[in-house]
């Protein structure tokens, strides 16, 4: 993200729907985005911000390569990317790994930003703590309950009158990303949009009646004040409401906007 993009990020956030992905990006999303680009697509003009989190190991020094630095050349005696191979980043002494030719092309069009040297002081080298800090942007944290993206979204929505019923969704097979965590915002996570349905084993009016009862049972449940159960109950209640609302909405969308709902064929690809 360039400085200019960073500045406009918050402005965009206010109006944007947001999609955050973890794990393997589902193909249907790629498809949906392609559809959105095509002139035929009947889409709202609101931009959608897509955040892709790719977890796992990566050699940062061999991704954005300081190919002239002695320290680098000493640190990667066998694996180093030489100045001949690196895809030069103009105006810097850095280059991209030769496998990143597509990314390099996008960079040259001004569509890619790079942030280097992200970390925290005196790292304790625990992978888990480091990821918690990455997701929460809180190096001093002891407990990690809120993610930076969730927090940003919440602040933007609070200052924006027309808050949305479902301001963001999380897609992917991993657990809900800490990055998006925040209390009080309805953010569903969806593994497979076709299976994201309320299934009570009945249909028609019986289903409506039972779904209504599930909602009411959770609303009227109580717990001893100021106990862990009371806090968890609030959480269970809001998640139940979110699950019921978002599945209903997605099911309705499947009827009117089939393009953004994956078919079994698309997913099996």
């Amino acid at each position, binding site marked *: 993200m360039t400085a200019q993009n960073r500045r406009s990020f918050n402005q965009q956030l206010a109006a944007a729907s947001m999609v955050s992905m973890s794990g393997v990006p589902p193909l249907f999303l790629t498809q949906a985005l392609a559809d959105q680009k095509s002139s035929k697509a009947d889409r709202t003009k609101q931009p959608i911000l897509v955040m892709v989190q790719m977890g796992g190991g990566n050699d940062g020094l061999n991704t954005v390569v300081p190919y002239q630095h002695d320290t680098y050349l000493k640190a990667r005696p066998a694996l180093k990317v030489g100045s001949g191979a690196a895809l030069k980043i103009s105006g810097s002494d850095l280059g991209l790994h030769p496998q990143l030719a597509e990314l390099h092309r996008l960079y040259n069009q001004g569509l890619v930003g790079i942030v280097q040297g992200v970390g925290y002081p005196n790292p*304790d080298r625990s992978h888990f703590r480091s990821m918690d800090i990455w997701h929460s942007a809180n190096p001093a944290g002891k407990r990690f309950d809120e993610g930076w993206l969730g927090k940003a979204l919440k602040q933007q929505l609070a200052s924006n009158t027309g808050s949305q019923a479902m301001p963001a969704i999380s897609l992917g097979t991993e657990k809900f990303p800490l990055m998006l965590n925040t209390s009080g915002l309805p953010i569903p996570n969806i593994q497979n949009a076709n299976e994201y349905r309320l299934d009570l084993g009945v249909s028609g009016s019986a289903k409506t009646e039972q779904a209504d009862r599930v909602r009411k049972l959770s609303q009227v449940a109580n717990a001893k004040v100021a106990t862990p159960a009371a806090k968890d109950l609030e*959480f269970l209640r809001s998640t139940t409401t979110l*699950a019921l609302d978002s599945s209903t909405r997605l099911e309705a969308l499947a009827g009117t906007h089939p393009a953004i709902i994956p078919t079994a064929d698309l997913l099996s690809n």
Partner: protein
Amino acid sequence: MIWSANPIIERMTLVWHNHFATSNAKVASVPLMHQQNELLRRHSIGSFESMLNDMSRDPAMLIWLDGGNNKRRAPNENFARELFELFGLGIGNYTEKDIKESARSFTGWTLRASQFYYDESQHDPKPKTVLGKTGPWTGGDVVRITVEHPACARFIALKILREFAENDPSPQAIDAFATVLRQHKMEIAPSLRTLFQSEYFYHADRLGAVIKSPIQLVVGSLISLRANDESLPNTSVHLANVVRLLGRLGQDVFEPPNVKGWDGGRTWIQSATMLDRIRFVSALVHKSDFGTIPASNAITQSKLSAGNPQASPNRDVANANKVNGVPKSTLDVLSATLLAQPINSAQRKELAGLSGGCSVRVTGIRSCCIRCLHCPSINWLKGVMFDWAFVHRSSEEIHVPLETLQRNSR
């Protein structure tokens, strides 16, 4: 877990599987994963130090954390790091130097023919300083020094309290249980016995203080509804579908997401898993993907919960209206069986009002059951095993003195 006569053994085996979270995704050997599972079962309620010692030599663990590739000239720090961070002490109780010196102590640990082998030629015999103690340590010494460290008992205390009592125990509770563990020389069974008989454990603040893991929800519900009792007519479990469901709910047994294991608590609950939880409980007490469970099982189980081991599904189900001689509605009986928390008056109105009073006819029991299962408190841990597992079958075989437990719980 579903059929065991010793539920506490299976329960603790699962706890340790999550503690020493090893995944077949890397080990890629069912026999070795099974061997590790037997190790966990063998030590499940025994000495923590013995378990940790055997675990440091376990083939699946050696593959999982690269302990089999720990050479004198190139010590591999992966196992040493997790020994401190995730298995024995927790972050903040050791230094990077402790990890390096500990890794040197484990040099020579390797695999031959898929089993543990000590290659003395690859062991670094020089002195090391680990957690402030200096000597020509081997891996066994490091395990001993780790367990002796005061942080170890606290770390294990937190783990066990989070499993059984509350997700976020106070420092006082952790210290108290750590003292119990140390008094019992890190032996698990007597420590659990003390915990399960304590006032702390039965305090009202502990009610609903743990969110059920997928396994606790699924296995607990199946056991509560006696789906595991083959002597009952028309009762069966479709295990393959149950296992598949556990994966969707986020708990693939033998494939925890990483060496930290499942985070537990609220991370189990998100909109997608909530939909799957609702789908599962709605399908119980039906013939469904997960098996066949007649509604009458629920009442049979209720009688057993009330301490009547002679209960049989053939008896007049209306008897279920009496618990210890006190007449109760079917709704009360079922909610007491299935839920961690008694239903409140608003829920009673919601549950009973729509069903025309929840009669004791079997169809009525079935709809009563489903309504109870739809209460949010179905997601709270109820009993110490897998829900009410301990009240049926051969309770005398169980290692925890259940009589005392039940007496104290009133």
